[in-house]
């Protein structure tokens, strides 16, 4: 999956990945796809619930050996 912006939140514990993603979303235009790299095991579910509350679109989560690749599309 292609991303416009990559946010590296590896080795950051909750709420680090969400803080980093929320900061990136604030500075991004609608329609942009953000790739969040995270190792926190809670991150995929956290980001899914967060996105559903605020209206951004979770495009998918890829799980690597150590790192989750979480794709979020910024809504308008």
């Amino acid at each position, binding site marked *: 999956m292609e991303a416009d912006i990559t946010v590296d939140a590896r080795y950051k514990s909750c709420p680090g990945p969400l803080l980093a993603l929320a900061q990136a979303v604030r500075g991004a235009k609608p329609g942009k796809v953000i790739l969040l790299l995270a190792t926190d095991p809670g991150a995929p579910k956290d980001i899914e*619930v967060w996105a559903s*509350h605020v209206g951004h679109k979770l495009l998918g989560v890829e799980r690597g050996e150590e790192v989750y690749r979480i794709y979020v599309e910024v809504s308008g």
Partner: protein
Amino acid sequence: MIREQPKTAKSGETPRISIIVASDRVDKLFPAVTLASTAAMMNWEAELFFTTWGLLALRRGHEASEVSADYKIHEEGLRRAFTSGSMPGWREVLEEGKKTGRLRVYACSTTMGLFNLNLGDLVEIVDDVVGAAYFLGRAKESEVNLFVS
């Protein structure tokens, strides 16, 4: 993927969370501000009411960094997590929550008197000084109410 979305109390209304913070130890401050700031980032309305020892953490020029006496054995590990950046500091988490415009921070009026504090003695993130009745009015409207001490 999550099969079932968590339910909010009243569909269509903005959820609210109110947390009383009555400790200035980082192991108490961190989860309290994490929940409030995360809620605000999820478009909830969030309130933090700092009372008794909790208010001491908001004094200007004072960085609350002590761990509760019961958990001193874990202090070094916690400090390492903060200094390495794997865990954000509680004040940073609070400031991120404030940026949403949906997190309010209240200082307990009785505690202000107890420690002879004025609003100017506290960090700028404090919105107002209020009493028990005001906070109860806000807490009554909240689906989630927590007390952290």
